[in-house]
């Protein structure tokens, strides 16, 4: 009936989704204090438009976009601003953030829900509304959505792909959204389709989410959305990677160093699509998202609807996590998520999950590389990760460039599979730093 699409390479980590996949999304109450970073997206950080002592309402803009590749930031609670200062950020470096004391009133800003039905609004206006709602890719990369939706005229886009793969183990946030807000998802898809004027439109879901598949299928049938096609994907990591998804569904390749729009595709995550629908229909800016809190150290895992800026420790506490036994906290999934230095960091727009482990995960004995080639088989980009790692280790930057180090998507498949337990991805990330430094030096020398 449906052809199961997939890509070349990849690995099969254990799914570990069973603890949360059947749990409905719970609303997590807004905490007493939120810390909202002004940089929750790729691109220029937002400029703060509030100052200490100001009173803000839920959904009020607190940081304005400072360029095309930038989005505004909105308050997620109502209350007084305690400070605008650098705070720890889940991505590592400290960034400017707005600290807001929640007065518990949840006063909402006056949302401007449109008088016109969305079908009558011009695409340009829709894109503008998406940007001002602060919508970014919520799968993890947090690329501003409006940028993807405005391809330059020399790069025509004919295909819209909605990413419901959720290939990262443990995470079930997108899965729950697809189940609980199926209709809203489809409306979001139609809005995106209208904006892009795409000829084809696919929703890709991994085969290990049969309930989501049937829900989406029924909804499509019921509403006669004939233009939206459901594609069942093989359960394989990293099926949800943009490039892999495009390859699996359309057979096209994103050119090296390019964007999906270079091959006529736009990929949006399920969460993003629903956020687009909320922004256009309800006029809601993006200030909350669904987060899966799970992991071996979590006592009762949950799917939670969380305000951005909520420190992670509240979520972990709410899910009965034994903090004494917790050895590692990860934002995102176990394959690409970022280990956190501490739990005071806030949830941001791209936090799809919070995992707590009671073991320091690798901690396995490292062996020398035996050239087994597992990493090559696993690499969805067809790189030679083991060689790249050695080049970086020996500081052979030119060779690393020659062997396409910059094309690595850091999916972690090679490291997952490596029988020598070498952290190849870490070397490759380091290599990217070296290469960028070298390029910067070369560029400055030229001038």
């Amino acid at each position, binding site marked *: 009936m449906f052809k199961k699409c997939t890509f070349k390479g990849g690995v099969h980590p254990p799914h570990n989704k069973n603890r949360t996949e059947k749990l409905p999304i719970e609303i997590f109450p807004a905490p007493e204090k939120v810390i909202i970073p002004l940089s929750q997206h790729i691109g220029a950080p937002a400029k703060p438009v509030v100052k200490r002592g100001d009173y803000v309402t839920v959904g009020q803009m607190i940081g304005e976009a400072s360029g095309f590749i930038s989005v505004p930031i909105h308050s997620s609670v109502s209350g007084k601003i305690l400070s605008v200062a650098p705070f720890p950020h889940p991505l*590592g*470096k*400290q960034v400017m953030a707005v600290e807001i004391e929640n007065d518990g009133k949840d006063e909402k800003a006056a949302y401007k829900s449109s008088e016109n039905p969305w079908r009558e609004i011009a695409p340009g206006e829709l894109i503008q509304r998406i940007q001002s709602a602060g919508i970014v890719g919520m799968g993890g990369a947090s690329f501003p959505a409006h940028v993807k939706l405005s391809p330059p005229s020399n790069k025509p886009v004919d295909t819209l792909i909605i990413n419901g793969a959720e290939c990262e183990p443990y995470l079930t946030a997108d899965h729950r959204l697809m189940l609980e807000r199926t209709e809203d998802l489809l409306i979001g898809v139609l809005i995106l389709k209208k904006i892009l004027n795409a000829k084809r439109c696919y929703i890709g879901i991994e085969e290990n989410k049969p309930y989501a598949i049937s829900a989406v299928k029924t909804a499509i049938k019921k509403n006669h959305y004939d233009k939206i096609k459901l594609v069942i994907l093989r359960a394989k990591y990293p099926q949800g990677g943009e490039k892999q998804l495009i390859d699996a569904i359309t057979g096209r390749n994103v050119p090296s160093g390019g964007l999906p729009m270079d091959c006529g595709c736009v990929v949006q995550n399920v969460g993003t699509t629903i956020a687009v629908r909320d922004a256009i229909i309800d006029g809601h800016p993006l200030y909350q998202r669904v987060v899966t809190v799970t992991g071996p150290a979590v006592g009762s895992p949950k799917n939670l609807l969380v305000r951005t800026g909520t420190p992670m420790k509240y979520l972990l506490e709410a899910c009965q996590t034994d903090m004494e036994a917790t050895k590692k906290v990860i934002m995102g999934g176990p394959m690409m998520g*970022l*280990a*956190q*230095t*501490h739990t005071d960091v806030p949830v941001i727009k791209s936090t799809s999950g919070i995992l707590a482990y009671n073991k*320091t995960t*690798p*901690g396995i004995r490292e062996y020398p590389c035996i050239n087994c080639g597992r990493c090559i088989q696993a690499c969805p980009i067809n790189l030679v990760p083991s060689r790249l790692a050695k080049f970086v280790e020996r*500081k052979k930057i030119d060779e690393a460039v020659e062997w396409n180090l910059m094309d690595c998507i850091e999916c972690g498949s090679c490291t997952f599979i490596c029988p020598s337990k070498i*952290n190849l991805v*870490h*070397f490759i*990330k*380091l290599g990217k*730093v*070296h290469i960028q430094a070298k390029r910067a*030096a070369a560029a400055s*020398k030229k001038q």
Partner: protein
Amino acid sequence: MEITLPVLIVGSVGLFFGIGLAIASKKLHVFTDPRISEILNILPNANCGACGYPGCSGFAKAVVEGKAEPTGCIPGGSKVANAIADILGVTTLLNEPMMAVVHCKGGKNEALEYSDYDGITDCNAAVLIGNGPKICQSGCLGLGTCVNACPFNAIFINNNGIAEVDPKKCTGCGKCVKACPRNIISLIPKVHKIFVACSNHDRGAKVKKYCSVGCTACTLCVKATPSGAISMENNLPVLDYSREENFITAAYKCPSNCFSDLVKFRPKANIDTKCDGCGECVAVCPVKDAIEGEKGTRHVIKKDRCIGCGICLNSCHVHAISLWGAGSVKS
């Protein structure tokens, strides 16, 4: 015949090829600048790359072609620069010899860490993961990226887990400065031995929470330096090495002990018999109780208190004070 034939053959072969080569060298002559090899002979040939060219030969070529300055060879210092300038027939402005210093001393015993780092032993790699385990966002990570970058083995990680420069070996090439992902290494003139060993721009109250030798921006050092050679910039003192100032007092006054002094033993002041006991020196001395003596009698310096800042020297109207004992550099 027995002898003449061999002589003739070798001779004629020699002559034939000799003439051939002579003609060829005229006809096929291509000019190459002999100065390149001359300069190459002078260069240290460490191929450290501090000049920004691929190896010493690349630099020699660039100098002759006028693309690089004669002073470009940093490890070679003034000696090499002069020699190159001689070959090229130009005069050159000489740089002061510099050395690298690490602006952090908060090691395992002084600075707290959020977490344990588990990964590649390289500062750049650690910075990629949560900006490193240290709470201080500008503390030395001690994973040795600068050590690997140094072509002269002049940097090492000390027992406290902090990078340290050996002033004797450092040539001031600046490779470590570029290598450090925290940007906490800088070059200072080699004659100065005192620098601020902290790079943290946080407010004092915050710094105190996680580092016992962090700069709390108390500005005592600024106050202790009337010449104005220290200024506060973004919660951190900036030392102006171009001023006539030894910074000893500032280093002494720092309550968080975040100045580093590479001189192990500073010279001590000594008051000779010319002293008339006016007490001026006691008034200017930054150290409490370092000078003793009744007004009108000869004053005495307490050697264990004197920090050797030399302020008293100028205050003495009879020129009775001098500094004794040479300073030696900490190895």
